[in-house]
């Protein structure tokens, strides 16, 4: 397979996120080495790879939380320098503010001066309704299950209506049944809002369930191995032939079966 497909100047207009030759090293590891790819407006893009392939670093770079050592990230054609309300982030361990209620967490971004909302109360109610947490408005995070916490995390990120949603293994800590339900809900939300989503996971089935396109990464150094389009109708059945084929293709990209234990694939 070839390296990633897109060079930055092609299709500039439909590109929402452009990652250009991004490299980033931590003390002893090369987290990202010359990574380039792009995500189109409204696309659901999953990034799959083994632990240590720099997929979280990549997400943080797009969010503006980490600066690349070299290369650049463009969002809507403008280089990313800092975090901004145009890019919402959902964290693996939820990162909810424990001293705020569900309502207070969802409302957090709306209270920032940079954000304008005509009726913030209504907006918060609408979002809590969207993620199915009616009746839990006044609960503190400690009273919620993992799945519910992540619903709050998603509602909080959506509140400021970001154009891009960055999700870092958001369902890694919830049980399988809850995860399936959250997948369906996330796809519903995405269908309603039309956001551009970059979703990092190490679960191949999760990627095939959700994505328009899967970016497969390799570790040490973190590079893009290939990108695979998933042209399947939604909702997708894990047992369907096409689904299994796509998953197998990604699995093959990630490495030979003998090598598969390197990848934390729970499928």
């Amino acid at each position, binding site marked *: 397979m070839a390296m990633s497909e897109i060079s930055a100047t092609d299709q500039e207009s439909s590109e929402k996120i452009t990652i250009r030759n991004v490299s980033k090293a931590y003390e002893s590891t090369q987290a990202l080495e010359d990574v380039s790819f792009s995500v189109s407006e409204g696309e659901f893009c999953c990034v799959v790879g083994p632990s240590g392939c720099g997929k979280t670093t990549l997400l943080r770079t797009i*969010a503006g939380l980490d600066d690349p050592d070299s290369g650049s990230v463009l969002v809507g054609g403008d280089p990313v320098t*800092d975090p901004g309300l145009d890019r919402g982030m959902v964290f693996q361990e939820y*990162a909810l503010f*424990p*001293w705020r209620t569900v309502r207070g967490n969802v409302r957090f971004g709306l209270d920032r001066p940079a954000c304008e909302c005509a009726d913030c109360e209504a907006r918060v109610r609408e979002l809590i309704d969207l993620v199915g947490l009616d009746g839990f408005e006044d609960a503190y995070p400690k009273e919620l299950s993992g799945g519910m916490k992540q619903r709050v995390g998603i509602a909080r990120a959506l509140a400021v209506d970001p154009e891009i949603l960055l999700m870092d293994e958001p369902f890694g800590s919830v049980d399988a049944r809850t995860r399936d339900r959250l997948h369906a809900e996330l796809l519903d939300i995405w269908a309603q809002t039309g956001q551009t989503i970059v979703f990092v996971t190490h679960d191949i089935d999760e990627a095939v369930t959700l994505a328009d396109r899967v970016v497969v990464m390799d570790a040490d150094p973190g590079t893009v191995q290939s990108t695979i389009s998933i042209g399947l109708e939604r909702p997708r059945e894990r047992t369907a032939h096409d689904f299994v084929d796509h998953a197998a293709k990604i699995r093959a990209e990630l490495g030979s079966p003998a090598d598969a234990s390197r990848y934390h694939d729970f499928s």
Partner: protein
Amino acid sequence: MSHQTDTDSNTMVTAGFEGDVKRYLRGLGGLLAFLLVWWAGAMVTQPSYLVPGPVDSAHAFFDLFATSTAIVVPIFGSELVLPTGVARLAETLFHYVPGLLLGASCGIGLGLAMGWNGVLDDWLRPLVRALRPIPPLAWVVFAIVWFGIHHTGAAFIVFVGAFWINFYGAYGGVEGVSSELTDAASTLGVERDLSMLKLVALPSAAPHVLTGFRTSIGRCWMIVVGAELFGAPGVGYEIINASNNLAMATSVAYMFLISLAFLCMDVGFRLVERSVLAWR
């Protein structure tokens, strides 16, 4: 304080009404046993002032409220006639409360600033390390030469004691703020450092800050009594004053009074803490 924590964890182990009753009965048993030993010890000890008995001490305690004493309110200068026990407690509080509040505010302020600002931390850390080990009572000499040993001097010593405990509470609290929470806040539009401190660091450090303050309530009672042994007016001074006249039962009565005052403040603050930290 550790005693209180123990009972808290016991509550969880032996949950339920029956367990509670058992626990209170045991506590009552312990108290009665102590009173008995105390009473017997006082009976056999001669001369009697060496160990004043529980009955004498209780008498002395009630006497504190049967007589009255006039005290001068600092700053306003007006005279106030109160039952003796209340009057002495008030005198202590005249330097305890300002010392505690001012020391806590300054300590929390500096702790937050140093925990949040790395450059300031670099500048001040060695200084803090050097000054911290000095026991607050060692500052008595400066309290005397700077302020004289009256309310201001005693307040200063309490200030020093409150300062360090609260400093470390706030410092540790801010240092422990998770980077995930500050990252989340950044992606939600928190840009200025001061907003981050207010919206994330402060609430996140609140449990540490409040624990620091609660600890300082107790520590400052020890310090304030120490300061008063050098001559500042109040319950601590009365303990030594009474003993100078060999009225040891009165000393014990004042010791009770301190214990009672501390317990009230501690319980009161715990209630505040519980409601402020309901999210924990």
